[in-house]
C-alpha cells in the first residue's frame, strides 16, 4: 500500500497543475458545504435571539363581542382584573385596549398653518396608560396618563405611519373623531409587541363613552396585552383568564406564543435540513467534477497505465493508484475548501455584523466529505484505467 501511495504522490506532485484543477471542484464543494452549515447555524442563532426578545414574551387575552353589541371596556374586562395581572409573577406590565371594527372611523386632521385635511379612515383604539409600556412602544412627545383618563382630557396618541400620512406632529395637531376634537400629544415611533399601533389613533379609555357613541353595527373587541419575562408566557397564559375574569374565564380567548425552546428546535431543524440539502447538492456536483476530470486524466495517461501493466502492475494496483490519487486530491481539497469556507463565513459575518456560529464538527465533516467525494469520484476512472490493455496502449 505504501508503494501505491508513493506512486500516487509522485504522479500528483509531478502534475501539480492538473492535480490543482482536479481538486478545485471538490474544494469549492467543501467551501460551500462549510459555509452553508455555518451560515445555517449563524442565522439560526440570529432568528432565535429575535424570537426570544419579543415574540416569546407577549401574551394577550381578548373578549370578542357580537356584532352590534357595544360595551364599555370596564363592562368586559374590569380594571381590577388587569391590576391583578400586573402583580402576577413573571409579568412586566399589562394594558387594556379596545378596538372598534366594522364601520370605518373617519377622522379629520387639523395641522397649524394648513387647511383642514380631507377626512380619512383610521383604526381607533381605546387604551389604558399601561398599554404603551406593555407594547414596548417608543413614543415621541407624551403618552397619556391615568390623570388624562380620569379628567377625560381630549388627547390622542397616533401611530408613526398614520402621523406621516396625515402630517401630524405631537403637541401641534388636532383630530376630529366622531365629533370629538382631540389634541395629538404623542407619536408612536416603534413598537415590538403591537405593530397595529403604528397605524392607529389611540384615545384614553375615559373617552370611551363618546367614542363608542353612534357605532351601531360595529364590533367592539376588548383585550389585554401582557408583557412577560422570558420563560413566563406559558405560566402567565394558563392563569390569565382567571385573573382577568374570575366569574367567567371561559369567555376570554388567550393567545400564548409558541414555546421558544420548541420553536428554536424547529427553526434549527429546518435550517439544518436546508443547509445540508444545499451542501449535498454542491458536494454531488464536486464528485461529478472530480469523476469527469479523473476520467479525462486517465484518458490522457493511457500509455502510462499501459507501461505500468507491462512492467508488472496488477489490475488492483492500477485501481488503487488512481483511487489513491483521487482520494489524496479529495483530502487536500477538503482541507483547503473547509478552511476557505470558515474564512468565507467569517467574512460574511463581519459584513453582516453577525456573531459567527459554527460547529467544529462541520469542518471535520467537510474534510471527510471531500475525501470520500474524491474516492467515489475516482472509482469509475480507476476501473477504466485497470482495463487498459498494455499491448494496445503502448502501440499508441
Amino acid at each position: 500500500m505504501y508503494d501505491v501511495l508513493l506512486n500516487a504522490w509522485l504522479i500528483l506532485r509531478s502534475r501539480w497543475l492538473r492535480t490543482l484543477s482536479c481538486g478545485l471542484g471538490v474544494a469549492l464543494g467543501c467551501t460551500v458545504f462549510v459555509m452553508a452549515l455555518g451560515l445555517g447555524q449563524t442565522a439560526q442563532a440570529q432568528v432565535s435571539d429575535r424570537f426570544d426578545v419579543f415574540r416569546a414574551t407577549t401574551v394577550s387575552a381578548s373578549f370578542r363581542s357580537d356584532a352590534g353589541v357595544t360595551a364599555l371596556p370596564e363592562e368586559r374586562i374590569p380594571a381590577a382584573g388587569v391590576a391583578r395581572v400586573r402583580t402576577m409573577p413573571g409579568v412586566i406590565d399589562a394594558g387594556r385596549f379596545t378596538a372598534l371594527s366594522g364601520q370605518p372611523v373617519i377622522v379629520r386632521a387639523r395641522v397649524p398653518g394648513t387647511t383642514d385635511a380631507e377626512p380619512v379612515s383610521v383604526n381607533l383604539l381605546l387604551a389604558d396608560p399601561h398599554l404603551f409600556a406593555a407594547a414596548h412602544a417608543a413614543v415621541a412627545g407624551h403618552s397619556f396618563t391615568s390623570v388624562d383618563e380620569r379628567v377625560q382630557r381630549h388627547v390622542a396618541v397616533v401611530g408613526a405611519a398614520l402621523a406621516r400620512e396625515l402630517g401630524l406632529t405631537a403637541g401641534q395637531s388636532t383630530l376630529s373623531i366622531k365629533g370629538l376634537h382631540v389634541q395629538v400629544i404623542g407619536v408612536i415611533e416603534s413598537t415590538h409587541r403591537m405593530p397595529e399601533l403604528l397605524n392607529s389613533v389611540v384615545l384614553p379609555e375615559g373617552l370611551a363613552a363618546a367614542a363608542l357613541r353612534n357605532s351601531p353595527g360595529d364590533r367592539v373587541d376588548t383585550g389585554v396585552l401582557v408583557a412577560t419575562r422570558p420563560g413566563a408566557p406559558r405560566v402567565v397564559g394558563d392563569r390569565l383568564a382567571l385573573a382577568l375574569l374570575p366569574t367567567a374565564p371561559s369567555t376570554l380567548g388567550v393567545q400564548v406564543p409558541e414555546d421558544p425552546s420548541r420553536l428554536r428546535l424547529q427553526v434549527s431543524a429546518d435550517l439544518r435540513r436546508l443547509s445540508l440539502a444545499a451542501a449535498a447538492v454542491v458536494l454531488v456536483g464536486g464528485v461529478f467534477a472530480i469523476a469527469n476530470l479523473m476520467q479525462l486524466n486517465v484518458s490522457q495517461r493511457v500509455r502510462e497505465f499501459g507501461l505500468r501493466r507491462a512492467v508488472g502492475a496488477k489490475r488492483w494496483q492500477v485501481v488503487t493508484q488512481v483511487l489513491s490519487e483521487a482520494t489524496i486530491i479529495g483530502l487536500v481539497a477538503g482541507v483547503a475548501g473547509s478552511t476557505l469556507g470558515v474564512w468565507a463565513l467569517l467574512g460574511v459575518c463581519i459584513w453582516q455584523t453577525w456573531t459567527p456560529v459554527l460547529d467544529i464538527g462541520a469542518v471535520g465533516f467537510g474534510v471527510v466529505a471531500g475525501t470520500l467525494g474524491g474516492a467515489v469520484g475516482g472509482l469509475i476512472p480507476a476501473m477504466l484505467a485497470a482495463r487498459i490493455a498494455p499491448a494496445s496502449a503502448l502501440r499508441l
Partner: protein
Amino acid sequence: MSSPSSRATTGAGSLLKCRGLRRSFDGPPQVHALRDATFDVRAGEFLAIVGRSGSGKSTLLNLLGLLDSPSGGELTLAGTDTRALGSRERAAFRARQLGFVFQAFHLLPELTTVENVTVALSYQGISRRQRRVLAVQALERMGLGHRLDARARTLSGGEQQRVALARALAHQPSLILADEPTGNLDSQTEAEITSILRTLTQEGGTVVVVTHNDELAAAADRRLRVHDGVVTSPTAVTRPTYV
C-alpha cells in the same frame, strides 16, 4: 500447423519455446496476425525479429512479453507454460522475468530518471532502499550516473532510451524484449544502444528485438523474418564487432 520454414532452432534448455503460436483478431474480416510460429530462444542469445510494417512482428513480441494472449499454440518462458497463467500471474511473471524497451521510450516525463526506474521496480516486492540501489546501479551501467535526478523530459532521445534500458534490466530479468529500440534515435545513438544490447547478451542476458534497422539486426546472433504473420527465415548471421 507450422511450416517447416518457421521451425527455428528448437531444443531442450531453451529460455523461450514457441510451438505453433497463433494470434488472430476477430473481424470482419478476421485477421490472422501470426500463424503457427515455432522457434526457441536460448539463454544468452541475441535474437532479431525483422519484417515489414504490419507483418506481425509487434504481435509476436506482445505475445512473447505476455502483453497479449495467443489464439492458439504454446509459449513456454523460463520453464513456465504461460497458458496456465491468469492475469495476476502474468503480471507477476512480467515483473520478475521480463524487461521491456519501446521505440517511444515510454518514460514518465515529469519523474526523475531514478524515479522512472524505481516505479517499475515497485511492482516486484523489492524494498524501497533496495529499489534505489538497483536503479542507481542500472543507470550507472548505462552511463547516466550523473543524471540521476534529472527530469525525464529534459533528457535527450539517447539518454531517454538508456533510462528505458536501465528500467528494463534493473531487476535482472531473464529476457529483455525491445520493440524498435533505435527507431527514434540518430545514427550515433543508434550505435550506442546496439552496443549496449550486444554487451548485455555477452554478460549472459537474453535479448529479443523487433527492428527494421539492418545494423541492429546484423548485430544479433540470429534473425527471424516475419512475413504476413508467418515466421519464415531463421538465419544465422555473422556478428560484427563493436568497440
